[in-house]
């Protein structure tokens, strides 16, 4: 699941999930690739991530960014998109 993102099948897309800070620490990794059905949304990607054992660490509605911009769950994903799950931020 973490190899380079090749082309997915005609009815599937491959997206890159990125994890940071406490989420990356819980997962023991900072990225993974997911294959999703064509038409999948950010919320679908998040649901797939929740299947992982460490994901009980995630809050009910974590902030999500698609291609480096905050996004709502209903946004449709495309092949090669970068989906980040953003822990509560603490910059400044």
């Amino acid at each position, binding site marked *: 699941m973490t190899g380079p993102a090749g082309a997915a099948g005609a009815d599937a897309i491959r997206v890159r999930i990125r994890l940071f800070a406490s989420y990356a620490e819980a997962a023991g990794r900072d990225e993974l690739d997911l294959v999703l059905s064509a038409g999948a949304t950010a919320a679908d990607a998040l649901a797939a991530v929740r299947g992982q054992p460490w994901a009980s660490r995630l809050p009910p509605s974590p902030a999500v960014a698609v291609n480096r911009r905050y996004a709502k769950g209903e946004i449709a994903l495309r092949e090669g998109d970068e989906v*980040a799950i*953003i*822990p*509560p*931020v603490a*910059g*400044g």
Partner: protein
Amino acid sequence: MWAMSPWLTDRPIDVGQLLSDAASAGAGGTVVFLGTVRRSAEDGAIEAIEYSAYDEMAEAEFERIVAEATARWPQARVALRHRIGLVPLGEASVVIVTAAPHRAEAYAASRFLIEETKRRAPIWKKERFLSGQSRWVEGQQGGG
């Protein structure tokens, strides 16, 4: 690696450089905000804070935040830098300079920039204690 980035750096932030970046002959009021790693009673003996970021998005988010500020205060000039990596007690983690013809704009733009940075910039911090322990700082739900 961030030495060339306009927004992130892994070195002590050069306030003089940011002041130069924002300077203009039309500026009558300049406000500098420095966010500093502090010692506090509730947190105990902090030695340093380690900042990490979603670098590429942090850069993009700072671009957007600064664009919003200059749209709102078109006469303001802005410079902002956030430090990443281990920041010792007393050193600045973020410095924001706003310069404008009149001070009200410089203060308003400064406050906007730090509030939006804290609300939106995908940056996290881990407190490191003299005891050797460390702890993620609970932040706020990010959002655009």
